[in-house]
Structures are given as C-alpha cells and as structure tokens.
C-alpha cells in the first residue's frame, strides 16, 4: 500500500497525497489498536464500528484491499463472530506497515 496511489486516484499533488496518507496511517494505527482492545474484551460492537469506519475511509482513498478486509471484519462482527479476526487484523497491520514505509522512504 503506497501513499502515491492516492495521487493518481484522487488527482491530487504529491504533498496532498502525503498529507492524506499520513492521516490514514495515523487513523489506521489508532483503529487497529481499538480492534485489538475489542478482541481482548470480546466487544464485537466496537470492532464493528471501527471496521465500518476503516472500510469507508480507505475506500475513499482508493485502497481497495484494506477496505475489503475491513468490510469482512465488519460483516463478521455484525453477525456476532470473533473468529478469523486475528488473520484479518494481521493483514491490516501489514498494509499499515507498507503505507508507513512508503511515507518514510519518499
């Protein structure tokens, strides 16, 4: 996941793409932390709310993979399920690291 994708998806300049990319990275890091807490507390409702938020925000910036993972997490938790969330969380974490890498290596 590279912040430069935002540039072409939204037709913005590099600085604006970077600004949005950083905001997404911060939001996502905070969201993943909330999901971890939700998993510890078996709080499906708060995980669902956070996943819903990531789904929209990442989709709006053109990050389809992250949006799909968040959508899958939202669907599961809406059905009251917590199984399989760890795998989804790991993949999300991986995408976050990719994004942070692109931001630091620019």
């Amino acid at each position, binding site marked *: 996941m590279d912040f430069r994708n935002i540039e072409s998806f*939204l037709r913005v300049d590099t600085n604006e793409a970077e600004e*949005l990319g950083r*905001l*997404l990275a911060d*939001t996502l890091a905070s969201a993943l932390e909330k999901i971890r807490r939700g998993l510890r507390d078996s709080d499906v409702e708060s995980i669902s*709310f956070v996943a*819903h938020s990531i789904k929209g925000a990442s989709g709006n*910036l053109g990050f389809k993979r992250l*949006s799909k993972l968040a959508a899958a997490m939202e669907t599961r938790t809406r059905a009251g399920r917590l199984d399989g969330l760890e795998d989804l969380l790991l993949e999300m974490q991986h995408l976050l690291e990719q994004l942070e890498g692109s931001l630091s290596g620019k």
Partner: protein
Amino acid sequence: MKAVYRESDMADAYSILVVDDNLLNLKLIEKVLTKEGYIALLADNGPDARRIAAQEHPDLILLDIEMPGEDGFDVIKKLKNDAATVTIPVLFLTGVSKVDVKLKGFELGAVDYIVKPFHPQEVLARVRIHLKLSIATNSLVQDQARKLRQVTQAQNAMLPSPEDFPDAGFSVFYLPLEEAGGDFYDILNISNQITGYFLADSSGHDIGTSYITASVKALLAQNCNLVYSPIESMRMINDVLVEILPKEKYLTACYIHLNRGTRVMTLVNAGHPPVVYMPKGKKPFFIKGQGDILGMFADATFGIKKIAVNKGDRFFIYSDGLVESTEKKISWVAGVKGLLSILEGVGKIDLSDIPNMLISRLFNGKPMSEDDIVLLCIEV
C-alpha cells in the same frame, strides 16, 4: 473529538457543511471542495454540526449517518425541525447500502445519499447538482412571491378609497386573508346623483380569484349605468360570469344603487348576507333579500328591494368573514345578531371611524386570519 471548523476567505462562494466523525473523510472532502472553490465547514459530531448549520446557514450539508452519540438520523431530524435550518438541502453519507436506511434518510428530509466508499468526483457531482436544484427552487420561490406581491398591489389598486369618491359617502375596512383576496368591492359613479356600491365574495383566495375580481370590476364599469336598472345590470354581469367562470367558481354579491336625487335606494342581493339598514336616529335592522349566487346559473333570480331613504340614513354591507368564525364556532346566524347589537351604538359616531371601531369590538382587537373581511359603511 473536537469539532474542526474552517472558513475560507471567499465571501461569495457556496458553503458546504461536512459532518463525519472520521477525520480522514472530513479532510478528504474538504480538499476536494476547496479545490473547486467551495467553502468547507467541518464538524465531526452532531451537536457541533447543528450549531454551525444554524449560525452559518450553509448552502448544503453532507451528513454522515453512522456517527457515535447523535447519529446522522438524529441530526437531520433536528435540522428539519429548526426553522433556521429546515430549508438547507442535506445529502447523507452512508456505508450501509440497505434500502431501508436510504428510505429512512429520505423520509427524514434528505435530498440524496452517497454510499461510502465514494469517489470524491462523485461527491462533487452530487454537490453541484443539488446546489443547482436549490438555486432553482429558491429563485422560483422568490419569483412567485414577487408575482403575488404584484397581484396584491394590483388588487389594492382596484379597490377605491373614500378619498377617490368624496361624494359617495362611504368608509371601508378591507382585510384579505392571502395575497389574492376573495372579497372585493367597488364604487360606481353612475351620475351626479347616483352612486353604485358593490360588494362580492368569490369562492377561493387564490390567484385565479384575483382575475375574477378584475373581470367583475370591468363588468361593473360596462353594465352599471343610467341605461340599465340595477337588476338588469346584475343579470348582465351574471350572464357573462356564467360563461367565463370555471365550474367550481361563483360569487355572492350585494349591489346598492343609491339615487340621492329621488332618495330611493335599490338593493340587489345575490346569495349574500343581509344588508343592515340604520335610518337616522333609529335602530338598525336587516334587509333580507334572497337571491341566487352570481356566475352559477344562467336563469338566476336575485332578491330586490326598493327603499325610500333620508339624509343621514346608513347602510352596512359586509362579507361573511365579518360575522362567521370556524375557530370560535360562531355561525353566520349568531354572528349577524352580534353585529346588529354593536351597530346600535354607532349612530352618532362619524362614518369614517365606524369600520375600525366595529372590527375592534367584533373581534376584541385584531381579527383572526380565517377569511377575507370587507365592510362597507354608506351614508345617504
């Protein structure tokens, strides 16, 4: 989270209030809007959104539905219940594509929705189209209001004032319920000695009614003259109105033809409330005259009375709005009795003061807005 509130330097640009608890979405939409020259006002929660909407009155609101605390449905409900924000178009943003969620938004007053994730260009396109619609609606409303004001002015110009007819000896109270009143009166100088007093109440208060008023005024000018007797004048007018009025339209009317030379007053009644006659120094009473309404039947017959009058005698003609009240449950029959008892006390009061005094006593101050009211006071 603290609400974010931004304002651009461009005073004349359209302002869009964006409401979303996700800062990333706020930032994204702000960027897209400001790039296109819009002013973006941002709020990340419902109460702040409502406060900004009431204070800044944005041209459009983009409102997220799924928010913690006060959600988008609560916000739109409150916006639509507040006179300061009710007319602002609201587009809701939702990540839920279920039909019932969208329908609920529409039922609460939203004009459109955008499903998340959205492409910013889609947001821009929808913002543009709803601003266009809003501008067109506002312009239509302004245009209609302007036309209605013109109708009011035109109608008022058609109603003569006592100053226009110093020899006619009358005073008047006229209060239309809406811009285009259904009540109408006219004064006709038939000769040096003869004056005609006409008062009508047409069904409805709409714009169409004001055209009827204009038509009747023209018909009166054409048909109330020395050649035709009062009853002939009314028959001529009725025949034309039967031809030109739509099926559901009609008038009740009263025509007083006063010859000061012969001191004969001729009254023609077309389904109108009875005229009050108050001979000088005596108690008032009704002159009842049954008759068909105007403009409905080609073979209509009208009530006619001829009365020998003296100097100082008074007549009062009025529309049913003066004596009827649905809200106060006052029927026409009860209302006219009250009118008669009040009129008993106006014998020595100057004619020009009677209308306002009578209205004030009948309505305990200001009349309620239930119907058009017209009262014509005539002195021989």
